[in-house]
């Protein structure tokens, strides 16, 4: 009996000693001290306390690398080029990197633990990305599965962006979803209204963020987002403009049309909005108003499957056959597309067939 008790005491003592050693090791050995993160060859240098992920440390210093999973290594979006330091590539990163990226030493910033000085390179436009806090000022039901959201900015109080850009909205924990994710949504408001931000969000079955927006977010709630991101923006020319976007793809087009109106644009514009049935149409009156406000703007809703017996007397089928009717000079036409890869591909093919130069077709693909 005494022998057993002694054994238990010895084993417990050893375990306790090892636990204490681990705590001490964490305090002293794993103390990486101050490290320097050099970004874009000295453009910015930040001093940080080592030990956290590169993504976190950059975020703490107001440098926001796009990430959808909140740093859990499950989205593969937070890529940066490591010029020096960073330790060896981890097995958790490899699946997200292609051969060229591996060769270029592209890494997932959420998987790099900063333990020493590190030099990285990021796209220069990321320097202007900010994190915003805002209040939900209005939630509107546009259709059965699309909502329009208006946020009033709290901090910073103003946002500068270009029509066509997007932000990453951060969810809050709800129901079984205990952590935060970020998802990209195009901004639908006019860039001239710098104190508000609008988004158009369609419910995605099984979607973590869209379920939160549709079922859990209320007017008056506080939210956070980062941005602006993206290069799907209006080209500074006088060319005719074709907008082609259905569903929530209407968001960047709304922003563009409102911006162009505010700046007195005289460009010829046609917006083809493809939908299935009448219940998929929204903001129709809004765009009809812009037909009156702008000197040469036409809104063309097209229904592919109008309900039987419906009073729809507009265009039917797909939008493609109607392009020619509105095309003045294909060589002097720009197209702005937002939607599924299938739609982008079909529309691009048709526009090229009509003579629109490929380098004048701009798109924001859902893929």
């Amino acid at each position, binding site marked *: 009996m005494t022998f057993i008790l002694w054994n238990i005491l010895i084993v417990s003592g050893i375990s306790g000693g090892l636990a204490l050693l681990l705590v001490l090791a964490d305090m002293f050995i794993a103390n990486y001290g101050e490290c320097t993160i050099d970004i874009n060859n000295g453009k910015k240098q930040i001093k940080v306390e080592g030990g956290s992920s590169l993504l976190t440390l950059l975020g703490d210093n107001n440098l926001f690398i796009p990430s959808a999973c909140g740093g859990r290594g499950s989205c593969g979006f937070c890529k940066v080029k490591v010029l020096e330091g960073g330790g060896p590539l981890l097995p958790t990163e490899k699946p997200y990197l292609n051969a060229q990226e591996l060769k270029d030493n592209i890494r997932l910033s959420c998987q790099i633990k900063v333990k020493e000085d590190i030099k990285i390179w990021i796209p220069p436009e990321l320097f202007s990305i900010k994190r915003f806090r805002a209040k939900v000022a209005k939630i509107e039901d546009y259709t059965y599965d699309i909502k329009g959201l208006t946020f009033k900015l709290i901090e910073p109080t103003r946002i500068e962006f270009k029509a066509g850009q997007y932000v990453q909205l951060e969810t809050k924990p709800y129901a079984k979803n205990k952590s935060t994710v970020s998802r990209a949504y195009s901004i639908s408001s006019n860039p001239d209204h710098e104190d508000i931000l609008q988004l158009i969000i369609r419910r*995605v079955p099984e*979607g973590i963020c869209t379920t939160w927006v549709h079922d859990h977010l209320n007017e008056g709630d506080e939210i956070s987002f980062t941005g602006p991101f993206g290069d799907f923006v209006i080209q500074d020319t006088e060319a005719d403009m074709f907008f082609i976007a259905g569903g929530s793809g209407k968001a960047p087009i709304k922003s563009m049309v409102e911006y162009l109106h505010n700046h007195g644009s005289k460009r010829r514009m046609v917006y083809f909005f493809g939908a299935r049935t009448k219940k998929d149409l929204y903001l129709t009156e809004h765009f009809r108003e812009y037909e009156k406000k702008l000197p040469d703007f036409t809104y063309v809703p097209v229904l592919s499957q109008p309900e039987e017996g419906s009073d729809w007397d507009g265009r039917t089928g797909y939008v493609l056959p109607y392009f020619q009717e509105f095309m003045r000079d294909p060589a002097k036409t720009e197209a702005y597309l937002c939607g599924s890869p299938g739609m982008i591909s079909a529309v691009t093919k048709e526009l090229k067939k009509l003579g629109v130069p490929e380098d004048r077709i701009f798109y924001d693909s859902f893929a």
Partner: protein
Amino acid sequence: MKQTPKEIQIIERMQPGILTRDGFLGYDERHLNEIIETDEGELQALGITAEEIADRMDFFTERAFDSYDGPIVIEEQFQVEYKSFRGKLVCPFMHGGGYRKGIIYFTNLKHNFQVQWTPLNIHLIREHHFFQGKGSKFRLEPRILSKVLF
């Protein structure tokens, strides 16, 4: 059942709220390996491989992508429709790349039977023989797929 660190990580990624709202395992309490092995056994009994099923799903999916958001009928017997959403889904087994976030609605007109899947489903079936856990929204039954896809 003993789990490797990688298995633990994969199972974590399959939980609700990590990659999708409700996760990949539904109410299935079996170990991931057991789910996969049971479905592999069923495929063997049916005399079909996961690759053959994935190939057929790929065929319909490609046609659905091309259909530009409207339903199309293939071989006079199958109707497919693709609903697209913004973004990509990643593989819980940590394969690289992303899979289009969209749903393929497939109807076998002869049997009047409908199933739905995502591009990620095809990858999970082809590469991992994983048809998802019972009760998962995108669980696909090998027995049903073997009947309706061909």
